[in-house]
């Protein structure tokens, strides 16, 4: 089974302070650590596990700049067979439609049985790229996948619903799945492992090679336009309790006692 995993490099903002750039169009990137989008990492791991079980090949692709090749190389070290980079310069990257156009054009040029990507990306969290790509390709998809089982040209997956509920869905191949975190435990790739794949060529594709014009994927062709960024509104603020840990603990216990 040949699998394509679409990945993206994003800043890790879980524990970091995110500072707006003065032009309000972006964020200060200097103090942020960048890496493969968490959801995509689970997708890559899942693809490699499927390959190890079912045979076939795993390819990874990103739309990015040369700086983004490190995540591709990391995927190669994890066990992906091929990595491709679609040069992002003509793309309007804030628009998931542009990205999906690029990915679907790429997928059309190859033949994959299965395409995977993360449910969403940790930066913009649209959760659109997967279903949009599937729609453009006309292949079935499902989102929020928490397990995959391959059987005779079909795959059965479970997808995560709300309230601790899951549903099982069967899809015909080729199909596209968006992968939820926690589906597996992604493996660690060592630097030596990455070095071993350092000479592996990563083909760089230009949009025109994929039959995409700058008008389609550039800002003028964007469906979704990112207008501005701002700090979240102050809104309702919690009443802050300050003091030494001891004093705070006492106060908390007092509050708790009053209620429970």
């Amino acid at each position, binding site marked *: 089974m040949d699998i394509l995993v679409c990945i993206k490099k994003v800043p890790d903002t879980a524990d970091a*302070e995110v500072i707006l750039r003065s032009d309000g169009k972006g964020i200060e990137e*200097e*103090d942020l*650590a960048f890496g493969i989008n968490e959801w995509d990492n689970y997708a890559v791991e899942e693809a490699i596990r499927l390959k190890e079980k079912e045979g076939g090949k795993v390819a990874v692709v990103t739309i990015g700049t040369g700086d983004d090749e490190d995540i591709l190389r990391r995927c190669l070290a994890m066990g992906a067979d091929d990595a491709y980079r679609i040069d992002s310069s003509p793309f309007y990257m804030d628009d998931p439609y542009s990205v999906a156009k690029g990915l679907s054009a790429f997928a059309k040029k190859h033949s994959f049985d299965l395409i995977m990507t993360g449910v969403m990306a940790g930066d913009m969290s649209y959760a659109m790229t997967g279903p949009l790509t599937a729609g453009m390709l006309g292949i079935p998809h499902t989102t929020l996948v928490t397990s995959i089982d391959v059987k005779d040209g079909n795959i059965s997956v479970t997808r995560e619903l709300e309230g601790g509920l899951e549903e099982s869905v069967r899809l015909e191949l080729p199909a596209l799945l968006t992968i939820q975190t926690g589906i597996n435990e992604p493996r*660690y790739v060592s*630097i*030596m492992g990455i070095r*071993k794949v350092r000479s592996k060529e990563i083909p760089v594709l230009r949009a025109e090679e994929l039959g995409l014009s700058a008008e389609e994927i550039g800002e003028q062709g964007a469906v979704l336009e990112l207008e501005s960024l701002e700090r979240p509104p102050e809104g309702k603020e919690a009443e802050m309790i300050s003091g030494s840990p001891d004093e705070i603990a006492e106060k908390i216990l007092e509050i708790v006692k009053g209620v429970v």
Partner: protein
Amino acid sequence: MEQPYREVFWNISYSWLFYILAAVASLVFFYGIYKRAAFWMSGWSERRNGGVDLKRLTKKVLFTSGIFSDDIMGGTTHFLIMWGFIVLFLGTVLSTIDHWIFHFLEGKVYIVYSVSLDIAGAALITGIILAYVRRYIVKRKNMVTIVKDHVVLLLLLFIAITGFFMEGLRLHANPVPWSESRVAYRVVDAIFHGSRAHLLFEHRLWWWIHSISSLFLVAYLPFSKFIHIFAAPTNLTLDSMNYTSFLTLDEREKVTTDFSKHQLVMFDACTRCNRCQVVCPSSNAREPLSPRMMIEEVGNYARGASGIPFVSSKRDADQHDKATASLGDTIWYCTTCNNCYEVCPVGINTSDIIREVRAARIESGGEVPVNVQEMLESVYKFKNPWQGSKGKRMDWAEGLDVPVFSKGADSKRCLFVGCTPAYDTRLQSVARNVVSLLEGADYDFAVLGKEEACCSEFVREVGEDGLFTELAYQNIDLFERYGITEIVAVCPHGFHTLRNEYGLMEDSAKRLDVVHITEVLERLIADGRIKPTREVPLVATYHDPCFLGRRNGIYDAPRNILRAIPGVKLVEMPRSREKSFCCGGGGGRMWVESNADEKIAEIRVAEAVETGAEVVVTACPFCFSNLDDAVKTGGYEDKIKVMDVSELLAESVLEPGSS
């Protein structure tokens, strides 16, 4: 008067038979040695040509100091056996020279020779008796005896006793005025009776028995525990040689064998004396790691391909490659405290072997604890093991005026803060105290601030050499960029790796002068630049961090700081200095949990509480975290608390609340 001498082959016919047997034994011996040497040489070469420490070598090899330490009886036992064996062996060599090359064993020389051999024989027998006393009468704890050990001991005993029989019978059958060996003479008196002819027969019989057993010993030697006669001194020699550099990643990539030559010798040098396990913190906490069994298990794997006959090289069915050379997860329990290495009489560096196997696990994608993987991911991504963002690396310094290199600080001296004091909110006060103390003493320094990368000491210890190398170069580049020549490290782990390991990767890092903060504080106190004046009435005990003490020999600086603080009464734990018992946080153990009932750190805290100290002081962030946790989990909160040296000093020096 006839000169005293001994006629070789006296009373013996068929001496040709002896020569044939001797030739066979020698062939077997040399074949075995050849196989061993081939096994050792099959490893890759470490670059250790930085000179040999002859003094240490002499002490360890000739005087077997490692065996004596903490075990006088064991030391004596081995000393007697070893030197008895050597003298008797030399005696045989001299006798051969005397017989074949030139005759010199006569007269006084012969008497000295003969008496020496008798003493050696007696020493050997005494040693072996002591060996059994140790095993079965004194019943020394933690001793491991397997059947093959009896073969070795009893064979030696048998050869020694039959030697005396032979000698006694010769003296009886052919009395000479220089019947100097009264003991042998009398022993024979008690056992053998009969005519001269009968005694001559007995002599011939025992001569052959003695000779054949001796030749058997020679032939058996390379295939038995006796190989340590060669492997141990070889290992100690290699061990006393300094590294000149580590293999580069390129070179490591090209290495096709599993272990280095030195490591292969280590496997053969082990005599299963079990001293390592006795001191191992993991073993003490009843975790499944035993350094001795680790060496045996991995050694069996390594020897499995060597084709040395009769030698234990039984591979388990699951030992497919180096990554699985040690089965299960035991390798992850090692704290790399190096106490096993400290006590090993033959210089086996178990943590070095463990590092190799861990590295193979990581490279092969084998079983690596999830927390270790995440720690490595964090170091890769965030350049610290605590998933802290770069923007928060200087949070500890909030409100302090700390000179930062990237902001133009003009200094040649870098205070290397380390990730744990920078990010761990419990330990940020350590960094703050240190800075306040240094600034109060007008001590010139600057920090790398947000640019500082993880020292990666534990990254190396868990076997991720590639990541270690990458991060080390990032730091080395910073040192070069800012013209830094001197480094003061707050954390002993950074101190150790910057001082001892960075220089093995890059020549420019060799020139760095790396000191630990306690050394600086000690000096500043001695120079009167830091004045601990406020009384801090506390009974304190000092816990030696492994990477400061055992690894780097810094025992006194922190103690001197404590002594300089008025009111502090320093008491010592039974296991201190070289014998310090690890907190359980080294070697990546901060990220490995065990199911043991009692944590390593809890054992240590209990020991500290025993001293009656109110505070256990340490100088390492990992030790601090582990001990502090153990105080809570072990229920010692009413009895003891944990402090960093700098914290205690700050209490005596700084205005309260100033940092």
